[in-house]
C-alpha cells in the first residue's frame, strides 16, 4: 500500500502528464474503469485552468480563436502548472511561452499583446499604496537627491513593443468597431500601464519619459534614471518629470541608495501616507 505522499504524487502525475498507470491500481472501479474516473478530475483541472487563462488573456484568446487558445493553454498548463491557489496570479509566463510556441510563429505581435494583458492583470491586483506627500521629497537635502530611489505605484508597468499593441488591444474589445484595420507596419509603441481609481488604464509615453520611468521601476537612483532619459533626449527636464509623477499620483515613496556596496545601508525611507519612518 503506497503512503499518502506516494499516492498524491502519483495522482498528480496522472493529472498533469496523463501517466495514470501507477495510481489506477489504488482506485476502485465501482462499475467504471478507474482511468475514466481519473479523467473526470483531469478534465476539471484543465478546463478550469484554461478558463482562468482565458479570463486573464481575453484579447489573445480572441486573436487566435477559442479552439487554438485551448490547445495552447493545454500545453502551457502541462509545462507550467500553477504553484499557488490564487488564480489571478496564474499565467505570468504565458507571454514567453507563446513567444516560443512554434504554431504561433506567424502571429509576431501575439507575445507582446499577451505581455500587455499580463501587465493589466497585474495592475488590477497590485498592492494599494497612497501617493507620497511631496513635502517629504522637498525635505531631502539637495546633496542627497541624486542617490534617491523613487518608488512608483506597485501597479505601474512599462512596456515597449515593436508592434502597435495598444491599437490591437482596443480593436479587440467587445465594443470595438469590427471593421477596424490595423497597419502592423505603423511602428511600435511605448506604454505605461497603471491602476487609476478602480480601473486599469494604459497610455503612450514619449521616449525620454518612458526611459526615465522604466529606470525608476528597475530601482535605479534618480541621477542614473535622469542620465538614461537625457540620452534619449537632451531636452529632458528632470524637475518637470518628477513634478509629473507627483501630479499623476504615481510617486508613493523613496529611499536612499546606499553609498557603496560595503556600507551599511543607512536608509532614509518614506512611505506615502501610513507609518512614515525617516531617519536623518
Amino acid at each position, binding site marked *: 500500500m503506497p503512503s499518502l505522499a506516494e499516492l*498524491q504524487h502519483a*495522482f498528480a502525475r496522472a493529472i498533469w502528464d496523463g501517466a495514470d498507470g501507477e495510481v489506477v491500481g*489504488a482506485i476502485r472501479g465501482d462499475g467504471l474503469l478507474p482511468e475514466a474516473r481519473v479523467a*473526470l478530475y483531469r478534465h476539471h483541472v484543465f478546463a478550469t485552468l484554461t478558463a482562468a487563462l482565458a479570463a486573464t488573456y481575453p484579447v489573445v484568446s480572441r486573436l487566435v480563436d477559442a479552439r487554438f487558445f485551448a490547445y495552447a493553454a493545454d500545453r502551457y498548463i502541462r509545462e507550467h502548472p500553477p504553484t*499557488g491557489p490564487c488564480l489571478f496570479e496564474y499565467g505570468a509566463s504565458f507571454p514567453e511561452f507563446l513567444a516560443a510556441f512554434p504554431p504561433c510563429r506567424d502571429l509576431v505581435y501575439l507575445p507582446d499583446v499577451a505581455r500587455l494583458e499580463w501587465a493589466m492583470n497585474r495592475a488590477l491586483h497590485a498592492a494599494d499604496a497612497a501617493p507620497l506627500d511631496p513635502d517629504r521629497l522637498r525635505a531631502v537635502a539637495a546633496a542627497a537627491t541624486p542617490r534617491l530611489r523613487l518608488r512608483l505605484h506597485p501597479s505601474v508597468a512599462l512596456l515597449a513593443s515593436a508592434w502597435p499593441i495598444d491599437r490591437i488591444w482596443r480593436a479587440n474589445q467587445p465594443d470595438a468597431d469590427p471593421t477596424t484595420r490595423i497597419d502592423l507596419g505603423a511602428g511600435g509603441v511605448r506604454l505605461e500601464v497603471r491602476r487609476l481609481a478602480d480601473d486599469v488604464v494604459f497610455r503612450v509615453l514619449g521616449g525620454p519619459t518612458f526611459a526615465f520611468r522604466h529606470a525608476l521601476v528597475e530601482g535605479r537612483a534618480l541621477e542614473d534614471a535622469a542620465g538614461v532619459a537625457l540620452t534619449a533626449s537632451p531636452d529632458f527636464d528632470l524637475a518637470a518629470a518628477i513634478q509629473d509623477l507627483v501630479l499623476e499620483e504615481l510617486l508613493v515613496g523613496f529611499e536612499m541608495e546606499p553609498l557603496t556596496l560595503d556600507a551599511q545601508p543607512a536608509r532614509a525611507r518614506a512611505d506615502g501616507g501610513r507609518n512614515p519612518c525617516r531617519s536623518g
Partner: protein
Amino acid sequence: MTLRDEGVPRFPARAGIGLRAPHVAEVLATRPPVAWLEVHPENYMGGGPAVRALEEIRADYPLSLHGVGLSLGSADGVDRRHLDRLRRLVERVEPTLVSEHVSWSVAGGHYLNHLLPLPLTDESLALLGRHVDEAQERLGRQILVENPSSYLRFDESPIPEPEFLAEVARRTGCGLLCDVNNVYVTTHNFELDPIAYLDALPPAAVGEIHLAGHARNDADGRAILIDDHGSAVAAPVWELYAHALRRFGRVPTLVEWDTDIPTLAVLLAEARTADRLLDVTRVEAVGALAR
C-alpha cells in the same frame, strides 16, 4: 429535536449566498435583503478594487470566508505563505466564519485547482488533524471543514466518510460544514444511503450547510454526478436538506452557483427557498420543545 445554543458559533440561522465577481457591483448598489455572504478568500488576496469592495460589503453583511486553497489533506504539508495570506485577510475583513475542505490540491509544489479526494485511512486522519490544528492555531480561531464530493474512492479507504469527519472534529475542535449537495453526489456515485450519511454526522459540530446544483455525466452508460455548481438546487437535494435541518437544527445555509452563473435575482430566490425551509424547521423545533 431541540434548539441548541452550544457548539459552533453561528450566524443568524438564515440563508446566505456565495458572492461571485459578476454580482459584486449589483450587491454594492442594491444591498439586497440576504442574511449573509460568503466568498473565496483566494480571490481577495491582492490589493485594488476587489478587496476594497469586499470591505465595503463587510460593513453591511456578515461574511464567511470559504477557502479552496489550503490543501489541508496534502502529505507535503500546508503552504505557510498561503496560510499567512489567509490570516491577513481574516484580520482585515473579520469574517464570522472561516471554512475549508477535507481534500488535497497540492503535490510537488504544484496546485491542481481541484478538491481531490483523500483515502480515508488512519494516516489521512492523523495528517488532516495536524493540518487543521496548524490552521486554527495560525488563524487564532476555529475553522469549519467541508465534506467533499467524490467521483472515485481508493481501495484502501476503510473509514466511512461521516465517521472520518466526526473524528477530525473531535480531535481538533473544528466545526463541520455539511455540503448537502456533496452528500447527495458522493452517496449517489458510490450507491450509499444519504440519510444514513447525515445521521452519522455529529449535530453539535455542524456550523454551516451548503447547497448547490450538480450535473449528470453519463460515462460508459453509468451516471456519475458532478458537483459543478452550475444549476439550481435539485429536488432530491432540497429533500435531503429538509432532513439535515431536522437532524442538525437551524443551521446557516449557503447557496452556491459557480458556473453558468445566473442573475442575482435567481440566486436570491434560491436563498429564499432555503429560508422557508429554515422557518419550517423553527416551527417544528418549537413544537418539539412545547411537547
